[in-house]
């Protein structure tokens, strides 16, 4: 199934400027309005982030929030995101890739491909680094075409192209047909998670690329490649309830870890036990269980200071 068809896309820039929109029908308009304007409002809301929570967290966590985000303000967090994500689009609109190669890493391995990420699956995904690495593997530069022919060359992992699905919403549907409001920090943390996927930590070498070329499966790539921190690809969980599932980070300071630190900071601003606190707490604990490296070592080991830089081909 070739989904690289030419579809018209809706995207926004981080500054909140629209970059061209097709005339949507009512249903589409509602969906587009819901996910992209909700995103914009979520990012804008960072300006009112209360620094107290992150500061309180850092007092007992070896300053990790500061080390990751460069400060405690919403501007610091927004800058973190802006450095790593340049484009957002509505996932169901798809995208077109040039050259139309089918061998995007991930694509032929665990996931069937990005086409499996539809509106019923994830909240958001960032495939900029994958396309950039695929370009390195194929010795070319791939370009992604977004809304109205906007062409995005994937020349760096920090190109940051994030698709939002229909699950990027304000309310959590419950089993009894009622719903609960999802705290804004939950969605903000999702964007932070995706932003981290734009970091090629420690860069990537030709020998890394050769190993990736030779890998027969995603698992082989993850375990043999020294470059899994380039894009912070998720790994199969080695222990716990999710053992064997592609839902963990083996290294510290991957997307789950960074997202967890943000949430640990902001949850301090919320009344413990309250509805919003419960959702964020559940998210923190789920993330913590996915960081296989171990929380204590991440927080307290000086040897594992978070490296927030991003490099290219070395």
């Amino acid at each position, binding site marked *: 199934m070739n989904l690289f068809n030419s579809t018209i896309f809706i995207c926004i820039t981080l500054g909140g400027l629209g970059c061209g929109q097709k005339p949507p029908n009512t249903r589409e308009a509602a969906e587009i309005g819901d996910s992209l304007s909700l995103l914009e409002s979520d990012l804008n809301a960072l300006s009112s982030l209360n620094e107290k929570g992150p500061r309180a967290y850092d007092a007992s966590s070896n300053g990790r929030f500061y080390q990751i985000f460069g400060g405690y303000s919403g501007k610091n967090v927004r800058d973190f995101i802006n450095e790593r994500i340049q484009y957002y689009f509505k996932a169901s609109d798809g995208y077109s890739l040039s050259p139309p190669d089918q061998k995007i890493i991930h694509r032929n391995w665990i996931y069937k491909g990005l086409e499996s990420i539809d509106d019923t*699956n994830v909240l958001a995904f960032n495939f900029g680094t994958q396309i950039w690495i695929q370009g390195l593997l194929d010795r070319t530069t791939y370009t992604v075409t977004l809304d109205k022919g906007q062409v995005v060359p994937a020349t760096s992992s920090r190109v940051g192209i994030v698709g939002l699905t229909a699950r990027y919403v304000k309310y959590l549907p*419950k089993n009894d047909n009622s719903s609960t409001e999802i705290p804004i920090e939950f969605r903000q943390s999702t964007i932070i998670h995706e932003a981290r996927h734009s970091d090629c930590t420690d860069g990537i070498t030709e020998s890394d690329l050769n190993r990736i070329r030779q890998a027969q499966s995603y698992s082989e790539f993850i375990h043999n490649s020294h470059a899994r921190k380039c894009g912070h690809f*998720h790994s199969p969980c080695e222990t716990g309830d*999710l053992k064997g599932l*592609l839902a963990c980070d083996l290294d510290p300071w991957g997307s789950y870890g960074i997202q967890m630190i943000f949430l640990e900071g902001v949850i301090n601003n919320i009344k413990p036990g*309250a509805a919003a606190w*419960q959702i964020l707490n559940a998210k923190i604990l*789920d993330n913590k*269980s996915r960081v296989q490296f171990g929380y204590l070592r991440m927080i307290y080991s000086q040897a594992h200071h978070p490296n927030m830089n991003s490099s290219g081909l070395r």
Partner: protein
Amino acid sequence: MKWKNSVLLAIGILSLTPLYFFTPTTKKENSTIIKTSVFQTQVILPTQINKENKNLPQKLTPPSVDQIRQEVASDPHSTPISILNFAAKLGPKMEQALETEETALVFFEELKKCTLNSTLPVSIQAICLSNVQILTETYPILEDQMNIIKEQASAESVRLIDPLFFEEE
């Protein structure tokens, strides 16, 4: 007076019974809530019925390990919706428990069972344990019990909540 109260109670029950039984399953919880509120405004309720009605719509139903694995298999990236739903249900119960010690003591037992149920996913056990901790912060009378729970709980769930717990020992 006694017979007047009985008549009022009977009228209340009869008028709401069809609403309860003929509402689709998913709506039954809502109708129970309606029933409680209507009773409270129209009839002097026996305490027992009031308690039952209060607890009915809020019964915790933690997801199983299998359910979570299925959800993660289809969407590895996100926190399973069943975990979030479980957390969402805890919110109103905790808010009630934080209001009165009596409610807190009852809910504490429910959280204890959940925390110590090793067949549940570790993240669910940990969610329950974290709420045990919050209740204990508000009601220090529960501290000894909380420490016992922590000692009996799975090491994995305690580590998620309180990574220094084992180091302190």
